[in-house]
């Protein structure tokens, strides 16, 4: 379970808080969607939860553990799928997975078996020994995902895992994530694909300007808002149609 309490983050030289006094609880084995326009604070929240940046104030626990006291333990039970392809382009898929798996402490046949299993599941076995730099966007996304789950994390953070991939790759990724969730992994996921989130997430929270505006089961949120037929309608009715460009 992830418990977030009064979590805030203000970047150096920024005028406003990226996230402000967030309170949120994500239950075990839940698929939780963090939705919001550009600059809403989704990536900041995921970055804090995955220990990449420190919050300005507030605190959070993951499975009852805090970073200050149990940094290594938390890192062992979480997996992070970053927005960018966090892979070495000149290494093959297998070499990348071997390295990142080793960094989780996996060794020998256990690591090899896990690599082969996940490569097979995501349709990449044939390309295991090819350099990542020659892969399509969808293939890179899938390797990026495998690199984060080799150690069977209890909690998986995904920052827009299906951005820039074709429908087939997206379908494979979503099915794969659903299987992981069935096997007991809690998934926290950000996306701009609201239809995908509607089908995929057990619960979602819509964040705007660093604050949670609403949260709940997607079908309940659709019912609560007037003249809305899907999550995208809910999203637009809550966050408005104004552009959110920022620099």
């Amino acid at each position: 379970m992830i418990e977030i309490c009064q979590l805030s983050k203000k970047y150096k030289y920024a005028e406003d808080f990226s996230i402000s006094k967030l309170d949120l609880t994500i239950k075990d084995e839940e698929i939780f969607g963090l939705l919001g326009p550009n600059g809403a604070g989704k990536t900041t929240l995921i970055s804090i939860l995955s220990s990449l940046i420190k919050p300005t104030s507030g605190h959070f626990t993951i499975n009852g553990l805090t970073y200050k006291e149990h940094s290594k333990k938390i890192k062992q039970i979480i997996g992070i799928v970053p927005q960018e392809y966090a892979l070495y382009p000149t290494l093959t898929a297998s070499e990348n997975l071997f390295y990142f798996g080793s960094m989780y402490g996996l060794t020998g046949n256990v690591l090899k078996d896990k690599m082969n299993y996940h490569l097979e599941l995501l349709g990449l076995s044939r390309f295991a020994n090819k350099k990542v730099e020659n892969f399509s966007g969808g293939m890179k996304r899938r390797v990026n995902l495998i690199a984060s789950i080799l150690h069977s994390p209890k909690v998986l953070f995904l920052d827009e895992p299906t951005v820039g991939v074709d429908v087939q790759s997206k379908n494979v990724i979503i099915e794969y994530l659903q299987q992981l969730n069935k096997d007991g992994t809690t998934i926290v996921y950000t996306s701009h694909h609201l239809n995908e989130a509607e089908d995929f997430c057990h619960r979602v929270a819509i964040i705007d300007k660093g604050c949670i505006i609403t949260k709940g089961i997607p079908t309940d949120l659709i019912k609560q808002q007037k003249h809305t037929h899907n999550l995208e309608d809910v999203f637009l009715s809550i966050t408005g149609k104004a552009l959110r460009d920022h620099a």
Partner: protein
Amino acid sequence: MHKLVASIYKEALLLTRDIGGIAILFIMPLVLVITITLIQDSTFKTVSASKIPVVFVDKDNGEVSQYIFNGLLASNSFEIIKKTSEEEAATLVLKGDYQLAVVIPEDLSVDLQKEISNNVENVLSKFGLESDTVKTESKIKIEKEVKLYFDPATQGTFKSAVINGIEKMVSQIETQSIYKAFQSQLGEEDTLIFDTKSFITFKEINPSNRNQEIKPNVSQHNVPAWALFAIFFIIVPLSINIVKEKNQGTFVRLQTQPVSYFTLLAGKTIVYLGVCLIQFTLMLLIGIYVFPYIGLPKITIFERLPLLYLVAVFAGLAAIGLGILLGTLAKTQEQSAPFGATFVVILAALGGVWVPVFAMPKGMQALSNISPMNWGLRAFYDVFLRKTSFFEVLPEITMLFLFFVVTSAIAIFYYKKKNAI
């Protein structure tokens, strides 16, 4: 331990996948050491295939000008082009067509002879001896100038060498003329009463240990100096490697994994230290096996190999520490690459790779003492040229190791401070 081994394996793979980068890393230092050694060798060789063209204007047409002309010819360093006009010679040098013009003034031989005869007569008259020969006409002291026109682009060391050479020739002919004048005044022109050969001569002795004299040559000087320069150039690819990881996102992933920054850096250190040692080995092999084939003196190592590698290891560690610090602090490759390259050149200059430390101004000498390249160079020269023992290079290698520890510690401290949760 497994994480460290995996890190080493990954770094080695990344390096070997960049064949162009590897080639540059290993071939460029070799090209550098061969080029510099060849150039320096030809500069200081007495018998050189290439000769410097010099314009010679002889307004004297006498014994002295002929002596200087012959002296320049005999040096084998100059190709002499005779001109009659001083103005023409000066123009040619100013245009950069020639590096040097030597202008011998009118009546130099005659006036020198008169000056010497006057002096000799004066000396003899003090002893109550009168000359049989006709007294010289003038007793007025005449000063003569041999003019040297230098190309403005000519370096100071070359100027000094030429001026010293000509001064020496003029001094020799003056001495010989004085002896001749005495003989003439004493009426002993036909018999040799003065030995005009130099009484004081010089012998170059190279202090040596263990009864093995190493004659310093251009290779013994250049191989360690440029090997060290190449070793320190590891800063550039190493810092780029770290910055690239930060920019391509792999570092973000590693930050979320249960692995310490120390382990990641240890993996890089071991692999890049291996690169440094391969570079060093190639340099030595070039010095031993290739130099003799291209007319350069072979480097002599004797039984110094373990000590040489020990110095190379610590010099490599110092360079790697600096590379790690630079890579950790820099945000982009545009920051790390030019800074790294320029900084190595500055360190080399401060370290005495180009100009010996003793020839530097006092302030720069003080700065030189805190340059890791200076410690490395001193240690290499100690082993290569002075044949010292392990204990004598211990201070230098200790400094190099401390430098590695301090720079790596700063990098880790900075990383932890920046990423503390």
